[in-house]
């Protein structure tokens, strides 16, 4: 069965500093990996995904993530954090070629606070 771990409930970073939000996963077969962001009182917004190809993927709002197969990780990064990046971040995994939806598993979420 697929699973996603986000080991940090909360990440605090100063504005202008680089940020990392960690994600590790467990899945049989090749994974499809996703990051979503949820702002207060909003739905989830898609940030980026890894399907195949380059291990470093770039997404919206200057975010990027690095797929590491040997470490089964997909950490979200940004070189310079903004206060407006403060939100709840979810990592998700879907096993390649599995039934749509049923195997889309979300991590518990990490709350990012960027301090001015």
């Amino acid at each position, binding site marked *: 069965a697929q699973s996603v771990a986000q080991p940090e409930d909360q990440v605090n970073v100063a504005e202008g500093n680089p940020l990392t939000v960690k994600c590790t996963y467990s899945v049989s077969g090749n994974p*499809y990996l*996703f990051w*979503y962001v949820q702002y207060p*009182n*909003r*739905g*989830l*917004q*898609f940030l980026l*995904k890894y*399907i195949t190809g380059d291990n470093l993927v770039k997404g919206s709002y200057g975010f990027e993530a690095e797929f590491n197969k040997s470490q089964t990780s997909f950490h979200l990064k940004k070189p310079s954090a903004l206060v407006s990046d403060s939100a709840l971040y*979810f990592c998700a995994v*879907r096993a390649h070629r599995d039934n*749509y*939806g*049923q195997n*889309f598993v*979300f*991590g*518990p*979420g990490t709350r990012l606070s960027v301090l001015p």
Partner: protein
Amino acid sequence: SAVISQKPSRDICQRGTSLTIQCQVDSQVTMMFWYRQQPGQSLTLIATANQGSEATYESGFVIDKFPISRPNLTFSTLTVSNMSPEDSSIYLCSVMFGLNTDTQYFGPGTRLTVL
């Protein structure tokens, strides 16, 4: 990009009543899903809404409690029946475009409080 809307955006309901949540997309989609996000928790898939047939429910969710309709390629409803305070959550619909796509896009959510 497509616009996904949900109605109502929030509601406060009494125990024992039912609430129907609507999800509308401004373009045709292949897949529609309903999720629940309990306070302080991650997302849990309730069911896949199938056009013209019964929804496919995940373990722990049943049709009598969460009846779902999907009459066409752009619209679905989720009803939360005989509500209790434990049903207080954010309910989100998500969609996928095309059979070979891989990304789910989410609506803004419906925040439900049951007293």
